């Protein structure tokens, strides 16, 4: 029953005509000369033209933009093939100019159209132009192409950077079963190994950590806690060369945040370790050398008191022989000898203290530091007729490692005295100025002992560089620089102009207690 009524309904209407009238495409039927035979409702709506007004008109008269030659070629081709020819929206833009006015800007002023030129009646040479709106698709395609280009560019950049990382950064990856799953080319090159030697090996076996129980335990603890861990490890290359690596174990997560293993970044610190070792030897050498200089100063310092004791003893001897030695003289002489011996003992203590490294910081007036330093040098200063002046405010205090600072000052002052010894001159001056800034204390020591040539002034702080004519180890100023920079958190610079040489020490006024042994 339902079937019959449906069939009756469809017989009563012209299905094709109804569909074509309402289809969401533009349809124009034209002949080879472009005369219009049909113009559907869709086109009426979009072009604001009525079919009755355009029928019989030439398509290129109604729409002046149409390239007649191309359209006629496509019509001829379609009719000849008895198969459609086409206009493609991405190339031809549009056939019928239809302005678009969308809120979402597509960048197009006119609707982009695909047009199929379909043979309609080959005898009458009629074709149907089926026009479909492709604006959104073309717009999306353009956007897509731009984004694909961006992705391609980013991908190239990513590959380039990945290659750089692979060649430059030492790393290996392990999974949660401790199997090595990846390692950089740089790592393989450094150790002289191939992928096959490393891949899927157990990390602990490969790193030969069996004998390093403590380290293994630490690594495992950090792995279990998924924490970053740094450790040093000596490894052998394929040529049995020892290299020291500073490894940093970092947990690795995938894009969803799932923990997938660890990356071990390595830094080859073999050279740094060597330099550190050499520096230790250098410092040891320089301290030995400084000690020698100190002993020479002690000897100088002791000469006068020893001479005093010697004189007292000789006087006592003479008086005894002449039998004029009374108890008062003896008592007086004992006192003098005791005081002088005590002075000698103090001198030794002072020197010994300078070679002790402080563990504790002391807040001390800078004047006291200079008093202790110059006390040991005053003999020479006077002996070589050096006019020594200090301009130090009494209230400047510094929280620092005093012995290291005294040792540094003695070294610098001694350098000036030695320069005067080598080339004596008129009006020899050695001037000390100390002032403070909000966070620093600045010490300036200036002599006029001849200066340093411009071409070598930059080298005087380097190890084994000496301007002294003899007995110069070339380590004194290097030691000073090391102490100032690495232990006193300061800077040491040497300047020279004419006959003057100026040493400037910039020191942290309040040093934090983080000293290491030197």
């Amino acid at each position, binding site marked *: 029953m339902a079937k019959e009524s449906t069939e009756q309904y469809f017989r009563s209407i012209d299905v094709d005509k109804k569909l074509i009238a309402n289809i969401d495409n533009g349809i124009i039927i034209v002949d080879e000369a472009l005369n219009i035979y049909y113009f559907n409702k869709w086109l009426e709506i979009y072009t604001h033209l009525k079919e009755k007004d355009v029928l019989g008109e030439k398509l290129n008269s109604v729409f002046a933009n149409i390239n007649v030659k191309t359209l006629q070629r496509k019509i001829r081709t379609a009719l000849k093939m008895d198969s459609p020819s086409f206009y493609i929206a991405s190339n031809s833009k549009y056939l019928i100019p239809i302005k678009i006015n969308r809120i979402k800007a597509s960048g197009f002023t006119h609707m982009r159209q*695909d047009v199929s030129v379909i043979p309609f009646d080959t005898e009458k040479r009629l074709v149907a132009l089926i026009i479909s709106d492709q604006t959104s698709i073309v717009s999306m395609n353009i956007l897509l192409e731009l984004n694909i280009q961006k992705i391609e560019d980013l991908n190239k950049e990513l590959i380039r950077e990945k290659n750089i990382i692979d060649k430059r950064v030492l790393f290996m990856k392990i999974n949660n079963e401790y199997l090595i799953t990846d390692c950089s080319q740089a790592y393989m090159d450094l150790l002289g190994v191939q992928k096959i030697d490393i891949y899927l090996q157990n990390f602990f076996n490969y790193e030969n950590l069996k004998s390093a129980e403590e380290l293994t335990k630490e690594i495992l603890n950090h792995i279990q806690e998924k924490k970053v861990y740094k450790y040093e490890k000596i490894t052998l290359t394929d040529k049995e060369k020892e290299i020291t690596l500073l490894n940093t174990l970092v947990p690795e997560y995938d894009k969803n945040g799932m923990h997938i293993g660890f990356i071990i970044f390595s830094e080859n610190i073999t050279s740094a370790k060597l330099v550190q070792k050499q520096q230790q030897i250098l410092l040891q050498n320089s301290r030995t050398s400084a000690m020698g200089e100190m002993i020479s100063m002690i000897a100088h310092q002791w000469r006068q008191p020893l001479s005093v004791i010697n004189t007292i003893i000789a006087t006592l001897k003479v008086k005894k022989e002449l039998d004029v030695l009374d108890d008062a003289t003896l008592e007086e002489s004992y006192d003098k000898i005791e005081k002088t011996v005590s002075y000698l003992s103090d001198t030794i203590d002072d020197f010994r203290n300078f070679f002790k490294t402080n563990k504790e910081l002391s807040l001390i007036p800078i004047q006291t530091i200079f008093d202790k330093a110059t006390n040991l040098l005053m003999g020479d200063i006077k002996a070589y007729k050096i006019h020594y002046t200090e301009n130090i405010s009494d209230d400047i205090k510094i929280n620092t490692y005093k012995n290291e600072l005294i040792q540094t000052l003695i070294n610098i002052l001694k350098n000036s005295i030695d320069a005067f010894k080598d080339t004596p001159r008129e009006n020899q001056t050695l001037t000390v100025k100390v002032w403070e800034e909000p966070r620093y204390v600045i010490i300036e020591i200036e002599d006029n002992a001849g200066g340093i040539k411009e071409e070598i002034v930059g080298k005087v702080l380097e190890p084994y560089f000496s301007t002294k004519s003899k007995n110069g180890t070339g380590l004194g100023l290097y030691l000073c620089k090391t102490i100032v920079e690495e232990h006193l958190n300061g800077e040491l610079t040497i300047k020279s102009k004419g006959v003057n040489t100026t040493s400037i020490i910039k020191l942290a006024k309040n040093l934090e207690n983080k000293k290491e042994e030197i």
Partner: protein
Amino acid sequence: MSELSLTQDEQDVLQELMNIAYGDATAVVAEMLDAFATLSIPNIRLIETSALLHELKGLEGESYFFSTQAFNGMFSGESAFFIDTQSACNLAKHLDLENDEDLDDAILELTNVLTSSLTIRLAQEMNAEIKFSLPSINKLPYNKIQTNKTLQEYSQVIVIDTEINFKDQKINGEIFILTKDGSIKWLKNQLSSILEALM
């Protein structure tokens, strides 16, 4: 012999059918170009896509227009047309084209003309009907051909070398009719039927 390769007889029949289809195509191309045109008799081969990609290595360093057009029906697949830059220039010159967009349009038209007339006639001879989708075009260097999805998605290729001559101008191109195994089986069956009818 693999069920997806053609026997010598089948290949001969296919060549004959293509010769007939080419006659039609020549007429359409002449109509399109509005000039007397000849198409060289095509050499037809059925090869695997991997073999085609290997052959295409010969194009390395050259720049090609590559247009494709899908067709559907009992015999379905996608036709691909390669045309070198010089040939495209010859086409542009002859059609008096003003810009690159017009040239792309003309190449697409040529693709449509050649592939439609060839495949429609081929289908007609085998009592089948096929419909075409809109063609699309890319200008791509050789190194992109290997990664082109169109070529990768199909298993077998009917390779047709062609040369269009008109007014002392030459357009060299290659048409590949890319098909999947189902269509090759259908083609093989139809060719066998034609052979049996001829016996």
